[in-house]
């Protein structure tokens, strides 16, 4: 479980960096506002997971490989890549809210003795679903 929390923490921190890079070059105010919240949500999840991991005696060791993180920041932080293409990339990876929530929801049942982590992860999973739902609705509003 500690390894799961650590991996998720690293992924959320990397996700926040990628969305921050997108915000910095996003020309659409209506998209930029939502992306700011999403970046903050991802960073918050990373902070929560780190806090819980340390309370449980774990350490933050997991890292998203530099090449992977750099490629994502480069692509989403590029003004040459259209926002519609960036949205399509995210939605291709997470076609439904359940796709992004599934890995977290899958471990909830294994957390019966640790109810604090279970409820924390339940709300983190809902936040991930809300992010994908908003991005999908925005993409649809562009005619995507």
């Amino acid at each position, binding site marked *: 479980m500690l390894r799961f929390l650590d991996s998720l923490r690293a992924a959320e921190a990397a996700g926040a960096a990628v969305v921050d890079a997108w915000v910095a070059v996003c020309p659409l105010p209506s998209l930029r506002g*939502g992306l700011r919240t999403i970046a903050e949500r991802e960073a918050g999840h990373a902070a929560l997971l780190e806090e819980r991991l340390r309370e449980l005696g774990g350490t933050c060791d997991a890292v998203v490989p530099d090449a992977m993180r750099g490629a994502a920041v480069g692509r989403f932080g590029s003004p040459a890549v259209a926002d519609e293409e960036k949205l399509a990339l995210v939605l291709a990876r997470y076609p439904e809210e359940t796709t992004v929530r599934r890995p977290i929801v899958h471990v909830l049942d294994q957390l019966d003795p640790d109810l604090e982590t279970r409820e924390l992860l339940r*709300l983190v999973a809902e936040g991930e679903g809300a992010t994908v739902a908003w991005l999908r609705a925005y993409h649809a509003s562009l005619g995507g």
Partner: protein
Amino acid sequence: MLRHEADDQAAEIIGLLDEFQAAERAGAEAVDHWVTVCRDARLRGGLKVIRTRDRGHACLAEERLRALGGTPSASVGRQLASLLAMLGSDDVSDRTKLVALLDRFPGELEDPLAEVVRRIDHDDETRSLLATIADDERAGVAWLRRMRETLEQERE
């Protein structure tokens, strides 16, 4: 839209963001106190998420407020301050705190940001910022309701 109408709305938005950032910051602090005295592990886990999100919302609202030329100066009203003080108290049960907090969100007031979001018609960035923050707020209220029901069922 006439220029003066846009200016009027910008002033209104700055005021709303200021009130919102003050409420979220104070709320995050109160929930942080609640976490330290909370006796129920399930509740503690969700409260930590709500605290962290409220803190993030306060930062986002302040950042937007400053981008629009405002300066944060609002403080929370007496009624909210009283509720927040109660949330951090060690002498009040978790169930009582949940009931008092959820009394602020009866039925149609479940999404207090929705009306604000609807009224913003010339600032797309603030509107989408608040709309996505509202998603977090709704999720938090729904989770608190589920916890209240769970605690009430366990009490019976």
